[in-house]
């Protein structure tokens, strides 16, 4: 099976750099799967888990604030954070989820910026929890 090089880069370091068979992400316009030979392509990503397949192994990462750039034989995923299940602090994510939910309920729609921020925090927390629970199955 043919492969392509996937690089996941955050402002802090290169998180991942390996030959993989497929990558599936949730883009701004919807889910999309990337296989070798995809046309050159750029899209921002939503806060969501991404799935990476290498042979029999498949791994999953929590990504937020990212976008993906597909080149001819290489895919680059830039994100503000990208965490493997082992790096995720589930307790913290759960606490963050509760905090965000409380904030959303309390504020209603008073402050747009705060509301938006709480929403994003909630998404991030949920993504983290999902990723870490799914990897254990």
């Amino acid at each position, binding site marked *: 099976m043919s492969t392509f090089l996937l690089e996941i*880069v*955050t*402002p*802090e*370091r*290169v998180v991942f750099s390996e030959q993989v068979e497929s990558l599936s992400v949730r*883009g*701004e*316009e919807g889910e999309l799967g990337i296989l070798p030979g995809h*046309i*050159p*392509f*750029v*899209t*921002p990503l939503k806060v969501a888990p991404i799935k990476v397949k290498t042979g029999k192994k498949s791994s999953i990462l929590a990504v937020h*604030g990212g*976008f993906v*750039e597909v*080149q*001819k034989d290489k895919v*680059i995923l*830039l994100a*503000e*954070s990208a965490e493997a299940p082992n790096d995720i602090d589930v307790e913290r994510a759960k606490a963050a989820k509760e905090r965000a939910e409380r904030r959303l309920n309390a504020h209603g729609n008073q402050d747009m910026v705060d509301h938006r921020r709480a929403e994003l925090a909630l998404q991030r927390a949920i993504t983290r929890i999902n990723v870490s629970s799914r990897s254990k199955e």
Partner: protein
Amino acid sequence: MAKGIREIKRQIKSIQSSRQITKAMEMVAASKLRRAQEKAQASRPYAEKLREVVNGIAAGTKGISHPMLVTRPVKKTAYIVITSDAGLAGGYNANMLRAVMDKIKASHSSKDEYGLFVVGRKGRDYFRRRELPVVGEVTELSDFPSFADIKSLAYAAVRSFEEEQFDEVYICYNKFINPLTQIPTINRLLPFEQPEAAASSGVKASYEYEPTPEDVLKVLLPKYAETIIYGALLEGKASELGAKMTAMGNATKNASKLIGELTLTYNRARQAAITQEITEIVAGANALS
């Protein structure tokens, strides 16, 4: 005489313990410096990639525009100033703040014409004392700050530009040359220079953008700005540790020199005391005989 000797001895002891501290601080700074440099290095691929993509979009599509690429008449300017929390870093903060003050004095006549985003306690206190307009601040960062630490300030700065509160954003940090040299640098962050479309247009494959090139740019440009701010912060940290290492190295050297001099004085005084005592004894014995 004897009292003078004791005095000198006490002084030597106190300088010795100072030297021990400065020596330890020097070594701590040296080992942290290496890590800080590695961290600054590690952040580079991200920034470079982003620039590549942004330039790619600009090159591949004609007549693209975005508020962050357009130069507006400047009514109000923002400065992001990166300083340290702790002192004992030689001229690190003083040089930076002087450069910023020179720049402000040269280009603004009143306090309404600019705002300051400050990183680090030293800078914040400096501007507060002078009652200059500090709009945002971050203090008590670790020596190896993560992107999340600076994110809120970077976001606020970029946003205030987008909302036209500020028409220009400058970033001021100490550029790291080597542990001995750090240069206070003031760069314009926003609006961005128009990327050079001509240079890379031939090489790049044409990309598909989803949803549209404009939308992608709208997401990427603020990110790019934030990344540059983060990069400057990391470089500032490396500079801070370099400056600290050098300053503490000098302090250690000075202490050693001082101890040497004092030891010499001490030995002389001791010898003089002994000589005097012998003279007195001999004189006494002579008087008896």
